[in-house]
């Protein structure tokens, strides 16, 4: 036994973590943090041979200011335990470990220990949640009445079918919100969902208005369901996922051939050495650990923990969204070119957390508003040249914004969202220039159309006549005479006069106004952080956590393995790997293996 330990203490088992350390020297902090969680705890029962490498790990952890006390004491205790229980049956050992971890874990732990521990117990007892609830009842005798209720609520909330039902409910409400027209007047719903002819036999306007389905996405029912879903998310993360990390830590060496054979993938290699297998697995990216005759290897641990990250990221997004809706200001304004407005006048608070800031005193001056056009005459882009002035009238920032390119200053964001025509500047018989205000006209569909009117003759007469001017954009103005007949089209920049019934008119300029949306949103940073985390963790979740156990039984190596996601590819990958394991010549098996691995 002892000599076996010695042989396995050499190169392979040590070289993995060491090489890892060398790779990770620059990014030591994150790497070791990872190790602290996923790496080290994989040794509740560390073999002697691996101790050196582990201590080097713990040392690195200490350098980064992480708790060390736990790691050492835990290791020593369990290694003793390991020797004692090695002969015992596996089930008993697990129970023993449960007890052990109950003693040891609390002192090490940052997140509230008692409950998650029970979750662990529940899972190790077959994955059902019933043991957990039973235990929580027992625990409640000693603890207060409140905490017992609290645990009961947690157990209910973390129930998967309930969570799925909540998700389905949110989806259904959202679907309903797109089917029912939102934000109309009550009259609209009276007509659309009349009582004498209900949709589907029961759905009338009473439903819509009582339940707030006319403003679904701000209705209490919708928010309530979302909040419930959020609560379930938290409860599930707390009671099921975090304990799962501990369960994952506990899985390690298997000592019995029967247990190994019960894995999803099994194989037996006659005439092979477990060390060769270890080297090959290492080459395939596995973290390999050897203890005497048994081997444990894993890969893609991140894939097992990433779903926790997904849940946390979702919670982050929810928190950010709440902050957005409670603490933001928004407003929109249409400003003619050349005019000013003060940011604070435009903005209105959206919730009770909305706090105005210094930057609200900023004055915005619209220097210029213009459009780019395609050759076909369609608008390519809208631009507004803005200057920001502080209280003393000093320019603090100047930027030309356009759609997709907003201005950001002191937490305020100004977006280009709309435009209109505010005035036409004309010369009448070389007099002027006069500014004619333009009014929006609704004629066909959603195309914008603006018009203005230049009275001719007696302005006070009851049927005043004059010249009409219409424009769709800033490019061309269409002119009609007093009888309403089409006269011609002029471009503002052409300066070409047009003669209408003896009156010479020059269109000097078409003055547009820019439509700006202004907002402050303290939640965006949090939401973006959540977005980033969600993208990353969703991608990592695709990775599959594969574990391999092997046992040297004479010249045979019994191999078992399982994986949690890529179950289809795993056997093929394993077969390819196992094909590479060299077959040993019977007489000199230990030496040869040393030669190969060395």
């Amino acid at each position: 036994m002892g000599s076996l330990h010695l042989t396995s203490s050499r190169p392979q088992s040590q070289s993995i973590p060491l090489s890892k350390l060398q790779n990770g020297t620059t990014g030591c902090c994150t790497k070791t943090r990872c190790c602290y969680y996923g790496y080290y705890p994989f040794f509740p029962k560390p073999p002697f041979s691996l101790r050196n490498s582990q201590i080097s790990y713990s040392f690195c952890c200490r350098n980064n200011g992480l708790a060390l006390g736990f790691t050492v004491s835990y290791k020593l205790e369990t290694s003793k335990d390991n020797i004692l229980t090695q002969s015992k049956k596996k089930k008993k050992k697990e129970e023993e470990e449960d007890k052990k971890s109950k003693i040891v874990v609390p002192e090490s732990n940052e997140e509230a220990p008692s409950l998650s521990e029970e979750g662990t117990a529940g899972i190790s007892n077959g994955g059902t949640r019933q043991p957990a609830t039973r235990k929580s009842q027992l625990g409640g005798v000693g603890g207060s009445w409140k905490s017992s209720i609290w645990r009961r609520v947690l157990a209910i909330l973390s129930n998967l079918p309930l969570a799925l039902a909540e998700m389905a409910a949110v989806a259904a409400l959202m679907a309903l919100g797109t089917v029912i027209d939102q934000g109309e007047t009550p009259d609209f719903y009276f007509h659309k969902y009349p009582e004498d002819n209900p949709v589907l036999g029961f759905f009338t306007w009473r439903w819509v208005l009582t339940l707030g389905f006319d403003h679904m996405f701000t209705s209490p029912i919708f928010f309530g369901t979302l909040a419930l879903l959020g609560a379930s998310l938290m409860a599930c993360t707390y009671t099921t996922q975090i304990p799962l990390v501990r369960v994952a830590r506990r899985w390690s060496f298997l000592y019995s051939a029967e247990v190994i054979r019960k894995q999803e993938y099994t194989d037996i290699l006659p005439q092979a050495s477990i060390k060769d297998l270890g080297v090959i697995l290492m080459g395939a990216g596995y973290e390999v650990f050897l203890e005497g005759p048994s081997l444990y290897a894993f890969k893609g641990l991140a894939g097992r923990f990433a779903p926790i990250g997904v849940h946390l990221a979702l919670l982050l997004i929810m928190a950010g969204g709440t902050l957005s809706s409670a603490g933001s200001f928004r407003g929109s304004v249409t400003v003619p070119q050349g005019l000013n407005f003060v940011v604070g006048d435009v903005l209105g608070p959206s919730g009770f957390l909305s706090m105005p800031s210094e930057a609200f005193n900023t004055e915005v001056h619209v220097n210029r508003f213009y459009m780019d056009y395609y050759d076909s005459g369609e608008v390519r882009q809208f631009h507004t040249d803005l200057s920001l002035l502080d209280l003393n009238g000093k320019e603090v920032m100047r930027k030309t914004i356009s759609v997709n390119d907003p201005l950001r200053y002191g937490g305020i964001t100004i977006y280009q969202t709309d435009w209109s025509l505010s005035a036409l500047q004309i010369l009448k018989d070389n007099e002027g220039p006069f500014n004619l205000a333009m009014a929006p006209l609704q004629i066909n569909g959603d195309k914008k159309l603006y018009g203005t009117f230049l009275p001719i003759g007696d302005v006070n007469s009851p049927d005043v006549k004059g010249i009409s001017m219409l424009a769709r954009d800033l490019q061309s103005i269409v002119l009609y005479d007093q009888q309403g007949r089409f006269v011609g089209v002029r471009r503002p920049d052409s300066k070409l006069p047009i003669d209408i019934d003896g009156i010479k008119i020059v269109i000097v300029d078409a003055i547009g106004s820019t439509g700006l949306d202004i907002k402050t949103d303290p939640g965006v940073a949090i939401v973006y952080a959540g977005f980033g985390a969600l993208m990353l963790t969703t991608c990592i979740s695709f990775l599959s956590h594969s574990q391999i156990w092997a046992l040297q039984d004479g010249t045979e190596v019994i191999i078992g393995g399982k994986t949690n996601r890529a179950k289809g590819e795993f056997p093929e990958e394993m077969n390819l790997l196992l094909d590479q394991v060299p077959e040993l010549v019977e007489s000199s098996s230990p030496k040869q293996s040393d030669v190969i691995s060395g």
Partner: protein
Amino acid sequence: MIFSTVEHILTHISFSIVSIIITMRLISFFLVDGIVQLYDSSEKGMIVTFLCLTGLLVTRWTYSGHFPLSNLYESLIFLSWSFSLIHIVPYFKKNKKYLSTITGSSVVFTQGFTTSGLLTEIDQSSILVPALQSEWLIMHVTMMILGYASLLCGSLLSIALLVITFRKNKKIISIKNLLLNESFFFIEIEYMNERSNLLQNTSFFSAKNYYRSQLIQQLDYWSSRGISLGFIFLTIGILSGAVWANEAWGSYWNWDPKETWAFITWIIFAIYLHTRTTRNPKCANSAIVASIGFLIIWICYFGVNLLGIGLHSYGSFTLLAN
């Protein structure tokens, strides 16, 4: 002019190749079981289709000057390109016959629909309205459509699984009946004889059953892999869309119909992924969720466009088009 000719040619080549492939598949399926050459050439055909579609997209990109995803027609071409991409990538892994059948026929349908007369008015590449002029367009739309494509593949596999499961159940019942009859019949005959006969029957039956359950397991597995992959794309697509919306309109979430439906799709497939986390997942349950998801993707992709409302009604931007 030359561009439109090239485009025309490429569209028709890709469509005809895919149709030929499907015919070959059907022939090899119904008439001559397992002719390797036919299968091989159909794989080559898919590669040619993929190249044609790529060429088509590149051509459109060159002559319109922007990424070819500004209207429904272009997004459909991109969808069938994604299907063929999914087809091509697993091709190198050699073992995904189920998936390739699904992707092949999906390409035919989308390509057929695109090239059919239904969409003639909108196949002209239009100009980009101001709101679409952003680098986010490429990221958002490619991710969304790749997501749709792989989710559609995954959920189609799930539908196939459902069909097979229910057919299997029926067969089991009929086989059971048969066994019963036989056992009654054999009462007259010697005991040993009957027993051996029954044994034969059951072994035959179980072998057949074994293959079916193998098939179901494979379908289940590949559909879940497809859906997980699609889920990643969908997540990235939705989130990049949200970031883009925050750049363009000042709000990362507007409850626009398209957004809402994309979110509903996301939730449905999240439910699918959760139904699989239980200890003993039943294939049928998650497959039902996936088939609901299939419908919802189409509502999200087409239904919302047909309503023509909201910011995503490709090309009719009431707010910003003058």
